[in-house]
């Protein structure tokens, strides 16, 4: 699975027998035991393992929920209540799955921002990065369809709003958008038919996700992990074997993350959801504010920033189309980061100007999230438009231009030098004298 040759030596007869027929233990050993891991990884690098856990947890809890759930417009809402009330520990499984979706997105956003800060998207990790963006897209589709399944008011109206987005294509080819929307719905409105097919896809997509995650990890093990300095592994002292070093750190990170996860499962299971989703779907009653789950809010803000005019530019009938295009572009543009960023220095740690833009970009995303939760009116729209521009400027202007004009600070010669404080920083007492025990 990697460019690194596995140091696996079967000792037992049984081990040798297997190794000659299917060297799967050799593969595992090379990928997850003696795989060289940069010695300077911080806790932000534990989120890869955390995300793997999240995917597995969602699949396991989801399979159990599907044993009790009924995907029909008359039975779905009742079956969720049946799970909460009558299934043994059903409330726990259901909370794990619902809160799990939020935790999955929390972890994936940390993971992405970590990649953006330390330049993990740059060569030779472009394919790894693009696979990551595809994972994000599939995750979003899965979460969106999953949110329909409880068949509450927000489920129903959320699907109605989001699937209706495709009707914006009518402004390009008359009738195309409507045809697509009706094809998605399986009828002339969102109904039990829609719910049924979304359930089918919601069950399918996580396994697709698992496959892409496999490719993501494969690509990671070919290029090797990035690290806080952004430097390549150059000398043997730059890395430590994955086990027990990275694994022990991953375990700490995962369990700390589980504390947060459990806090929400047991004490705040409904905090991240919307109260309206405890009202059964009613096609005749529209909720006053339709909002998606928190993890979609920044993208929702971008979608709604395109009203009849955008910062003074009249959009007319194309407003909706522009919003839809902007929203999808906001995700897709992340995939182009490897080519948009012109700096050859990976880590923002050594990029004095870019660093500030990064933090401002993080603020932009949080601001968009806040604005997405507010009604699309008055000053909120103007701010959403301003921050939408900021969002795209980060990729389209900051990344190419800052890379050209910025003088990076002095890079350490190697990871080992950075860790031992050689180079730019003064030598800590006794550092050079301490022999490396590995």
């Amino acid at each position: 699975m990697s460019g690194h040759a596995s140091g696996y030596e079967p000792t037992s007869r049984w081990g040798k027998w297997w190794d000659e027929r299917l060297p799967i233990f050799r593969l595992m050993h090379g990928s997850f035991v003696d795989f060289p891991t940069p010695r300077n990884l911080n806790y932000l690098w534990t989120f890869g393992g955390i995300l793997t856990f999240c995917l597995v947890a969602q699949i396991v809890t989801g399979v159990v929920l599907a044993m009790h759930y009924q995907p029909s417009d008359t039975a779905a809402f009742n079956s969720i209540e049946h799970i909460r009330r009558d299934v043994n520990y059903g409330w726990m499984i259901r909370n794990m799955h619902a809160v799990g979706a939020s935790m999955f997105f929390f972890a994936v956003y940390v993971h992405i921002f970590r990649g953006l800060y330390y330049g993990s998207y740059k060569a030779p990790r472009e394919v790894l990065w693009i696979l990551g963006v595809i994972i994000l897209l599939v995750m979003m589709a899965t979460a969106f369809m999953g949110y329909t399944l409880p068949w509450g008011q927000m489920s129903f109206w959320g699907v109605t709003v989001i699937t209706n987005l495709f009707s914006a294509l009518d402004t390009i080819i008359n009738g195309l958008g409507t045809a697509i929307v009706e094809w998605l719905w399986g009828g002339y409105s969102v109904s039990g038919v829609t719910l049924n097919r979304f359930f089918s896809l919601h069950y399918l997509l996580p396994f697709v996700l698992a496959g892409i995650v496999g490719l993501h990890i494969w690509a990671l093990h070919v290029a090797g992990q990035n690290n806080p300095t952004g430097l390549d592994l150059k000398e043997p002292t730059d890395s430590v074997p994955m086990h027990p070093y990275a694994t022990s750190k991953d375990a700490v990170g995962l369990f700390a993350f589980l504390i947060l996860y459990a806090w929400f499962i047991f004490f705040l299971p409904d905090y991240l959801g919307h109260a309206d989703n405890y009202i059964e779907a009613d096609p005749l009653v529209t909720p006053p504010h339709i909002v998606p789950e928190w993890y979609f809010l920044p993208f929702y803000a971008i979608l709604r920033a395109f009203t009849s005019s955008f910062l003074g530019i009249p959009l007319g009938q194309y407003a909706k189309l522009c919003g839809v295009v902007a929203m999808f572009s906001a995700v897709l543009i992340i995939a182009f980061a490897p080519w948009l960023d012109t700096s050859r220095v990976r880590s923002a740690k050594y990029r004095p100007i870019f660093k500030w833009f990064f933090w401002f970009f993080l603020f932009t995303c949080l601001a968009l999230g806040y604005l997405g939760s507010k009604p699309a009116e008055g000053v909120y729209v103007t701010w959403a438009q301003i921050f939408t521009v900021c969002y795209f400027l980060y990729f389209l202007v900051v990344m190419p231009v800052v890379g050209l004009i910025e003088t990076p600070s002095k890079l350490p010669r190697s990871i080992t030098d950075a860790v031992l404080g050689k180079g730019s920083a003064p030598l800590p007492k006794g550092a050079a004298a301490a022999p490396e025990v590995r």
Partner: protein
Amino acid sequence: MKARFAQSLGASLALVMSAGIAVAAEAGHEAHIERQPWAFSGFTGQFDKAQLQRGFQVYKEVCAACHGLKRLYFRNLVQPGGPEFPEEAVKKLAAEWPNQITDGPNDQGKMFERPALLSDPIRGPYHNDQEARAAQNGALPPDLTLIARARNVERNPSWWVHPFLMLGDILQSYQEGGADYVYALLTGFEETPPAGFELAEGKYYNKVFPGHQISMPPPLSDGVVTYQDGTPAKAENYARDVVAFLSWAADPSLDQRKRIGWQVILYLIVTTVLLYFGKRRIWSAVKH
């Protein structure tokens, strides 16, 4: 005792976070909805059995005239973590419940009405929404099983306060917005609407209801229910007790959930600390 301490510690932490900004938080265009000191709120809160029993009495004697509890079954009134009425009493209650169960078809192919059993839902007076609307002048009395979860208090703090309020909520594990809202609604009726407010025929003025016009007449007034346990027969007490009961109806596993939650959190904290020291030992020879 320990739990109380932990809760007050969390609460004071959250207070420090939001101190001084709480006033700025409510840029109130709607009536302010107070947070109530629920026995079941926060990460150590549990339902008060006596309160749930009183709350059920209020439901039965007042609310049940119009509202059903269709997702709650008579058997639930017996189970642990709820009002825990004796089984015999609930069997009797079910048998005497005025809204009987439609069952059938019988040998003649006819549907028939029969008294409720433990295994039956707590039905309201109407068979369907249409019947309810016809009887209530077009208004629909909602089923109350999930009402405490299906409502929330909307707050509109200024943007910079928002994250601190959220952090405060998370640290205190506050998710009782629905209960606060229903309590505020039940106690938010005013006999005379503010000057200049046009109240439609057959509507009542309520401070917290969206639009302030509600079809439900003020349901609670002092003395309408006689408590057995000496709790003063005050409208606020009725409201508080019935909201506690409805909160249980909406989330019957709360007690068990929080009990297991503490065991899980404790296990995770201990394991995390152990793993951390294990990790430090493993890495002790490698500068990183």
